[in-house]
């Protein structure tokens, strides 16, 4: 099978709002597929329609040959779900919790084995509310694994986690991929999408505006890098736009940002310009282009509010 997931013209309309607007994408078996976008773009609604938690207004998602629209319960058997809110019953310990969720799938589950998989075995007696944010996310991934799913959905798994906990979770996600499971995750962290995902769909205002591999997405735009520096005095930025290979120049207070399609040419031009018209720049930095820039370029806004 070429695609394990095939989403076709999926749409969610509320009375006066279209939350997801005719989106289509495919996911190959064993892939980590990311949906990247700002809050309110429609990522969670997309996932919840695919999980059978929200009614599909139009279009369909087919997972492993089963239509979600027609057989939501059958689809639930083959997918694992991690929701954005990761709270659980407070009066059960972790092992009981996993075994309870297993029983809802009609399965007998070895709670300890699953906890070992997510490195929570020593916490088996704890209650979910006693865990840290990162531990709780790992628990909810363990819950998503109770039915040996073919596909796992992770909704913003690292939101609110510190960098160390985030990397820990990335490692866990890769382990799950290595075991042959397909993963779909949403995120609004561009570095997460870049590092973790095999392919990414960029979503904004209910629509998918681009989808490709991370490197493919970076090639979408002309820009290759960003040059940033500080100036103390007033500076006319119009002449900077004339610099070789410069695609855009912005000023935010004392920070000037030049987008460029060729770093060396623009830098050389900037220094030559400085000789004749002293800019007095400080703190000069050069950044490789990233998904943030791609997003900014495609939508005209930044990924984080």
């Amino acid at each position: 099978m070429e695609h394990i997931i095939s989403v076709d013209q999926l749409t969610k309309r509320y009375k006066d709002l279209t939350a997801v607007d005719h989106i289509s994408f495919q996911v190959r078996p064993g892939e980590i597929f990311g949906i990247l976008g700002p809050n309110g773009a429609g990522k969670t609604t997309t996932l919840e329609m695919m999980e059978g938690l929200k009614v599909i207004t139009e279009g369909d998602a087919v997972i492993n040959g089963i239509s979600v629209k027609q057989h939501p319960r059958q689809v639930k058997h083959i997918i694992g779900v991690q929701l954005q809110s990761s709270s659980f019953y407070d009066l059960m310990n972790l092992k009981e919790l996993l075994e309870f969720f297993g029983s809802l799938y009609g399965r007998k589950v070895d709670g300890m084995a699953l906890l070992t998989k997510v490195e929570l075995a020593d916490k088996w007696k704890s209650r979910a509310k006693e865990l840290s944010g990162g531990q709780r996310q790992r628990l909810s991934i363990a819950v998503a694994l109770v039915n040996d799913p073919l596909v796992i959905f992770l909704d913003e798994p690292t939101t609110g986690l510190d960098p160390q906990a985030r990397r820990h979770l990335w490692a866990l996600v890769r382990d799950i991929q290595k075991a042959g499971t397909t993963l779909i995750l949403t995120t609004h962290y561009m570095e997460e999408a870049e590092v973790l995902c095999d392919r990414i769909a960029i979503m904004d205002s209910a629509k998918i505006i681009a989808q490709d591999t991370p490197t493919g997405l970076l090639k979408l735009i002309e820009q290759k890098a960003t040059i940033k520096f500080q100036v103390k005095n007033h500076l006319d930025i119009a002449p900077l736009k004339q610099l070789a290979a410069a695609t855009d120049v912005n000023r935010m207070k004392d920070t000037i940002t030049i987008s460029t399609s060729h770093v060396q040419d623009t830098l050389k031009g900037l220094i030559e310009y400085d000789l004749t018209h002293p800019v007095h720049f400080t703190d000069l930095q050069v950044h490789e282009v990233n998904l943030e820039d791609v997003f900014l370029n495609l939508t005209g806004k930044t990924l984080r509010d």
Partner: protein
Amino acid sequence: MKPFLSITLTTLKMLFRNNQSLFFTWFLPLCLMLIIGYVTRSNDVSIRLGVVYDHANTNAQTIVDAMSAVDALEVTADTKELETAALQDNKRDLVIEIPNATPNEITVYENPSNPSQSAIGKMIVQQFFQPPATVTFITETISSKPARYIDFLVPGIISMTIMQLGIFGTAFAIVDAKQKGVLKRVIATPIRPWQYVLGNMLARLILSMTQAGILITVAWLVFDVHFNHWSWLLSLIVLGNIVFLSLGLFVSGLAKTVESVPVLANLIAFPMLLLGGIFFPTDSLPDWLKLVVEKLPIAVLADLMRSTVTLDKGLSEVYVQLLILIGWAVVTLFLANSFFRLQERD
């Protein structure tokens, strides 16, 4: 394990681990029953009877001695002035005067502020003066087993706990799970909504029965309250639970947050708690209010428990009330079905 059973067992496990709910469901009703039972016990059992008679009258003396031997009567004898004064001070429930000249013409002074005590007292006293030829009817049961307050109270408390557990217990647990998103995670599994709801309700029914069992046992051991007709009792507990669990689901459907649960639940439960004849009979209420109040599910349930369980009445005598309760079950099931959704509609 079957998902349905798993939900029942897990819910039960959590119910028994929730200390706060254990306090409210087990400890509080039990305390309430014991405290009210003890406080009112002395007043129930004895009817304070004052007797005015000539001590030289041996006939009268025999009768007074016989009355003193009755547990339910607390007999004092004095002059007419002192005894009627004591009645006015609410220290007697009933005063009788046995005249020397006409021993068959007994004057009875009733205490209007204790009408039931007076009435019961009068019936007991009549026993001692009736000619042997007269057939005795109700007085038989009353003299052998006086209507004690505790017999009234215990079925009331059991009905109350069924109501509280059904409405508050259900609504708090379900709205909390909904608000935290736990319910959504449960719905993300292939379980069917009815499996979740029925599994949950079965657990609460089991809890409710265990609790009724404890109350009944304690009432029997401490206050000598006798329940008859166990199958009747069991069906009433089930029927009562259907009504109040449905109301709990109805409240769960209306409440968007845990904070709004007590407000909505009290709107339903509080009037029933106060007026539903749990702690005192509805007899003293104005007629128009009585008409409404007597049909409240809690009043009907408590009355059915009293009349069929404690006082040993037959089905034919209570079928109207039984029909009312079944009617309530139908109405509340309909409400639950119309307002409660596991998943918000979108």
